[in-house]
């Protein structure tokens, strides 16, 4: 009989600790949700912003044309100006 009462006392002491620990886990889990939602929104916006990356191909083409024109201009300068 004495042992049962001792176990009851132990249970009474453990129960609040258990509730506190579980409440902490739940609070942490709840705090993660809005952050994940925010990250999802930012990732979606970033993905949408990267739609313009395709234009880099056009930029590459333009730069190639510009450097080609520059080379032609340099050739003309090479012919027009005397060497040092």
């Amino acid at each position, binding site marked *: *009989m004495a042992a*049962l*009462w001792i*176990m*009851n006392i132990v*249970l*009474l002491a*453990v*129960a609040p600790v*258990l*509730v506190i620990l*579980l*409440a902490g*886990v*739940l609070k942490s*889990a*709840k705090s*993660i*949700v809005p952050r*994940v*939602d925010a*990250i*999802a929104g930012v*990732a*979606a916006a*970033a*993905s949408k912003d*990267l*739609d313009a*990356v395709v234009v*880099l*191909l056009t*930029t*590459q083409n333009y*730069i*190639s044309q*510009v*450097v080609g024109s*520059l*080379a032609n201009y*340099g050739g003309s*300068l*090479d012919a*027009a*100006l*005397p*060497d*040092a």
Partner: protein
Amino acid sequence: MSLALAVMIVLIVLVIAALAVFLIATIVQLVKINRGLAAVISSVGEIAAKTAPVNGVLDAINGTLITGRNLLEGLFLKKAGDDAGGLVESVFPGEGAKFQQRVGRGGPVHNIGPTYPRGAAILASLLGTPPPAAEAAAPPPAHGTPEGRIRLSPRSPSGGVATAPPPAPAPPPAVAAPPAADAPPPTPGRITLRSRAAPMISAQPASSPAQPGPGASGATEDASVPGRASARGSRPWER
């Protein structure tokens, strides 16, 4: 049933109930996190797919730009010689030493300044106009080059000399001026590297009339500024 046993059972039920409530709530939150991460992963996957070709494209662009830069620097070194570093330093202060280091040349870098007499002489000879008046009035020590050119670079770090092509006649002390020249420009005989996009040559009006060089009439189309030979007028795309 004893009282102690009943109390124990009640306590155990309460503990199990607390465990169940909090664990179920935690599971619900973890499910929400899982859904959110799934949305994040899909967006990140799109980002990765869209940025995959960026490295190759940027490398190609960088390669093209480096090729153009090397081409222009090589041409610049070929045409300016030892004055190249000084010219870079004069236009972009602090960049002359970096330029010298990049092209593998040593030695100190001397700032050419806002004017480059050798360039002025070359441009004047190309335009068929007389050289700048300052050069003609006080000619630096001139040396004939194998091509028969005259170097006019008194401030060159190498003591160097500018060259003038053979078609340009030897400048007399009195510089030939266009017929419409009746007022001296603010800075006669100077070519600026900074102030204008198109190079301009100012010729000091002569006291006695002289015949301009060949092609001077075509080069002095800028009639709004007397005594100024401009390369702008001979460029059809700027009209």
